[in-house]
């Protein structure tokens, strides 16, 4: 079996099983549409106006990717800062946890009030949701060092900068990649939550808006279609981050190279 088939066949088989079970449920219990539309109804909702779904997905993707990029950069920088001073880390890390615990549903309307309707608010909400995993992962990676290597650097009178650049950062990359993977799904959720509260304008909308509108109109099949598109977007961004991470790790961290 080729490598591609080995990795892609099991999830496809699992998906087919779930869809088959879903269709079987429809057959057996025949639930009304408002409870559960059939897979067929969802597919026809997608096919009715695929352009609309694709445009909304694209809009949300841009906001999510922007937020993820900001989170990776800002999270890594915060981690670098924290790695330079234990005092700084102890004083500020508890506040970084705020990002994780803040009830975003309550804060999002305020953000819209401060930053206005539009992309800036949506990206801000998504950053708040996706930043924390990168901060934690980067801080851990930059501070948990091999003591032997630290001694080695000290013995050779390495400067703070040299230690950071040649020891801390290379050690931290794998864990930053893990943090970024966790954040990739969160960035999509954040963008959708942001879109719930702020729009891009009258004729421009993302998946969050589509989810809200179809729910407002009780169009269950179209709601499922929008939710599926959100999920697919999350998976795609996760896959992209994973592949980029795998390339980096293979190139620089695989002992075989």
């Amino acid at each position, binding site marked *: 079996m080729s490598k591609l088939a080995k990795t892609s066949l099991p999830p496809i088989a699992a998906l087919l099983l779930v869809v088959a079970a879903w269709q079987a*449920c429809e057959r057996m*219990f025949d*639930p*009304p*549409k*408002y*409870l*559960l539309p059939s897979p067929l109804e969802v597919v026809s909702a997608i096919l009715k106006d695929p352009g609309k779904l694709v445009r909304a997905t694209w809009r949300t993707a841009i906001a999510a990717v922007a937020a993820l990029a900001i989170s990776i950069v800002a999270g890594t920088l915060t981690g670098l800062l924290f790695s330079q001073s234990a005092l700084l880390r102890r004083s500020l890390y508890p506040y970084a946890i705020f990002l994780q615990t803040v009830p975003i549903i309550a804060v*999002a*309307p305020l953000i*819209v*009030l401060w930053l206005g*309707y539009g992309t800036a608010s949506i990206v801000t909400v998504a950053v708040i949701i996706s930043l924390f995993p990168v901060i934690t992962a980067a801080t851990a990676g930059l501070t948990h060092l091999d003591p032997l290597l630290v001694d080695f650097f000290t013995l050779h009178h390495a400067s703070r900068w040299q230690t950071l650049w040649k020891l801390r950062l290379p050690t931290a990359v794998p864990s930053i990649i893990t943090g970024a993977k966790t954040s990739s799904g969160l960035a999509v959720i954040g963008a959708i939550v942001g879109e*719930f*509260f*702020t*729009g891009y*304008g*009258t004729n421009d909308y993302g998946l969050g*808006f589509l*989810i*809200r*509108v*179809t*729910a*407002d*109109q*009780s*169009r*269950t099949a179209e*709601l499922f279609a929008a939710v599926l598109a959100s999920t697919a977007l999350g998976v795609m961004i996760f896959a992209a981050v994973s592949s980029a991470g795998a390339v980096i790790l293979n190139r620089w961290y695989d002992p075989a190279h």
Partner: protein
Amino acid sequence: MPRWTILTPVLMSLLGCWQSDPEPAPATAHDGTLRKVTLQLNWYPEAEHGGFYAALENGYYRDEGLDVTILRGGADVPVVQKVAAGQADFGIENADRILLMRAQEADVVAVLAPMQTSPRCLMVHEIANVASFADLKGVTIAMNAGEPFAQFLLKKSLPNDVQVVPYTGGVSHFLRDDKHAQQGYSFSEPFLAEEQGTDPKVLLVAEAGFNPYTSCLFTRDELADEEPSLVRKMVSASVKGWKDYLASPNATNAAIHNLNPEMSLDILAFGAEAMRPLCSPEGQESQPFGRMTAERWQNLAQQMIDTGVLEPKTVDPAKAFRAEFLPSDSPE
């Protein structure tokens, strides 16, 4: 009122709850015990539900042999789904949503329409010098664009260059910006905006021509078919409650305030006062309370089809309501 919660009943149903309909019991049990009935509200207790609370407080439900439990609603409660699936006996919902849900195979039927004129409005600043929807040029409007009333306004009444943004509750944006309009209920948001020192003006959506019956009492087809006497008792006690509430709301408002302290006695009093003309509009005072006509249901369905909210031929408006349970002799 946001309703993103369609998934909740799906999950409940997947867990097998939808087969758990309680066995129908007779409307008045022979041993003199009361028949237990649940009424699911569409929001937290507020003036909009005053008549039902008055019926409860004044014992009208008990007089009919009913032990009614009123369940609070909220963003997390899918009202029509719960009633359709048998998890509640009656519910409160607006006529447009009843049509939308019937199109999704939820077999529910409206049996009483306390509010004949919809309180749905856009609230604008008096200072913005707006006389009608057509004057809202260049204004930012916060409303849920998916709601049928919003689609009606966008397609029939508003100028093309309005900027529509999602409505997220409250009145903060409105307070900040003279060029901002927002959705609301005429007896609620304008009160809050005025309290905060602005001068709001109300444009009723009903005056633009879109006027769904509001806060309808509804049940599922099955219950109306199998226990018409239960439904009749529920309707007649509710009508009594509504007449009481509109005449003297204070005691009931105190009870609502107890259940939902977020609603101050002042806003409840304002609400009851503002609802009176909505419940018995000028020129209709001699009509039976809460009546519904086939013409209005038909007209509403047609408007929703015309504005693309409802697929043609998915719902028969004549089946969405039943006027037969209303007490025959109940003019104002």
